């Protein structure tokens, strides 16, 4: 076992680690800045891998299992790389009442895609959000950051299919 009590250097010279290091420095490398740091890493890299978690744990002097426990407690954090495209379906009450379950069912039937999963070709990740706050437009999805409302199941299926075929 390696025993190294100095603050570790970033896993690689990828420039994005500079952002992460700066964020930790701004918070004085306090253990309490763990969640803020995880946010920064995810923003920079899209997800949290083992390397990142080990680096953060050593830098903030938080036990490995605790970092992992925090990262898996909060649904906002992802431990696997996301697909090229993200389809986030709102599952808030208004969207539920107005038919999101049917959209989810359609995606599962068509692509065997369940919330939290990515298609095997790595093209599309399906996620759910508790409420994106656009209840007036229910049911709502966020396609790569763009909020789209009043959706029907086949519209979402077609959007995913276009993504899979590299059409926009």
């Amino acid at each position, binding site marked *: 076992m390696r025993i190294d009590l100095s603050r570790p250097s970033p896993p690689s010279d990828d420039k994005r680690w500079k952002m992460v290091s700066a964020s930790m420095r701004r918070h004085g490398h306090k253990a309490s800045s763990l*969640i803020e740091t995880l946010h920064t890493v995810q923003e920079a890299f899209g997800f949290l891998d083992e390397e990142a978690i080990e680096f953060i744990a050593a830098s903030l002097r938080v036990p490995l299992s605790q970092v992992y426990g925090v990262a898996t407690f909060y649904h906002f954090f992802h431990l696997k790389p996301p697909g090229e495209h993200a389809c986030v379906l709102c599952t808030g009450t208004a969207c539920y009442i107005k038919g999101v379950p049917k959209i989810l069912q359609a995606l599962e039937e068509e692509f065997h895609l369940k919330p939290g999963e990515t298609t095997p070709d790595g093209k599309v990740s399906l996620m759910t959000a508790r*409420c994106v706050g656009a209840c007036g437009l229910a049911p709502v999805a966020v396609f790569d950051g763009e909020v789209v409302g009043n959706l029907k199941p086949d519209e979402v299926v077609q959007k995913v299919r276009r993504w899979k075929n590299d059409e926009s």
Partner: protein
Amino acid sequence: MNPEEIQTIAANQRKAKEQVPHHICVCTAAACLSVHSDEVKDALSDEVRKRGLEKECKVKGVGCMGLCSKGPLVSIETDGALYQNVTAKDAPEIVEQLGQKPVKRLKCSTKIPFFQNQKKIVLENSGVIDPDRVEDAIAAGGYDALIQALTAMSPPEVIEEIFASGLRGRGGAGYPTGLKWSTVSKAVGMHKYVICNADEGDPGAFMDRSVLESDPHRVLEGMIIAAYAIGAEHGYVYVRAEYPLAIKRLRTAIRQAERLGLLGKNILGTPFSFHIEVRLGAGAFVCGEETALIASIEGRRGSPRPRPPYPAESGVWGRPTLINNVETFANIAPIIRRGAEWFSSIGSEKSKGTKVFALAGCINNTGLIEVPMGIPLREIIFDIGDGIPNGRSFKAVQTGGPSGGCIPEQHLDTPVDYESLSKLGSIMGSGGMIVMDDTSDMVEVARYFMEFCLSESCGKCAPCRIGTDQMHRLLDRIVKGKASIHDLELLEELCDVVRSTSLCGLGQTAPNPVLSTLRYFRGEYESKLVDVAEAVKKA
């Protein structure tokens, strides 16, 4: 800066505004943005520039105007016209008609009950000011209350004023705000904290997001006044990471307030200092519970701990901590500015002031409304909300999200206040109001909320962790026609146990959607049951 300098900013801003005859306000809150109000705003600006009208007409982005279902919304401040469903293509016509007859095709009447029956305190500046400009906020009376509190009132006087106003926590439970402040102010300890809970987690609720997107300075002002009253030097706003726009505007507002000396060291030249940091939530509903929220701010898993000790005594870092939600803080400045007596004249006997609701589901006017406490539910749904679309009939309204309940037709004349709603088996909650028409299946609705609680349970205490899962399985069996009367009996038993024995509010209230639908729609459950032998076969 000192108070006079702030007042100068306000005066200059008002003067500058008077010099421009036309103001076009485009809603740039999340719902309108999602239907491309940013493009509308750009088109309008281009059009104004093309016609060389920059001096006579200003186009600005403002916060939420409320009627989200008709977005994008554009208002012409001087003409008093409101336009709905505006697209970029409409820009030339809108600019053409400035100061003349409004464009009929796009007009949205402001005489309708949706606008007439509201009473705006928290949202008074939403849709009016540019949330990205502190000067706009100041010109509209922002930070007046802070100046008043810091220069003319002692901390106990501030607390007394809030106490006398009768304001109760808007996060759901309705605890008297003045009492909470007074408890924290009396707590022994050097360092105290103020936390603004903006982890709005109820699915179908977007009040706090809208306030932060539309008028962030109002929230900061409330927090600063609270910090002055209880003697805190540090504060956090704990906001959902799912609200990027609200976070951006909040951060901008903090920077602006710091620049003007409204936040930070020696506020307004007084000895009082207060710093605010933004902390991002990460998708955990349970973090709305105050001890879980504190754990999360401290960088840990958001698991609640048993109370006492309450945060007022031992909160973040073990220090006395005041936690209020966004809407509560947004009420503070108006109370200080206009007095407790004015505030307590609004609302009902035990519930003072107004309440913001997010109206959604099967209702014509979806969006954000603010109404005086005590208003009957019927008025909200059928006048302000304009009733049920597609010729369907009303079945129930869900308030309070996963901790609340469904209220049926026969109770629609109930006044909206904390006590009346809890008597009906629901709660005020943070303000989500989801309307369901006669096509909604109430057992499925109950299953939906149980699924939510199950996936949001932190897993610490056994009754909530396992009980929500078992209840969800039972509800699923009932929906799928695989359950017998024994399953329904077990469901009711588990509701009782989980409610009475869970560690925190999430578990204690998780059975509410089941209990309230059982209370009013028991027949729907029973009609799905099959006999015992059948149920065994389908297992």
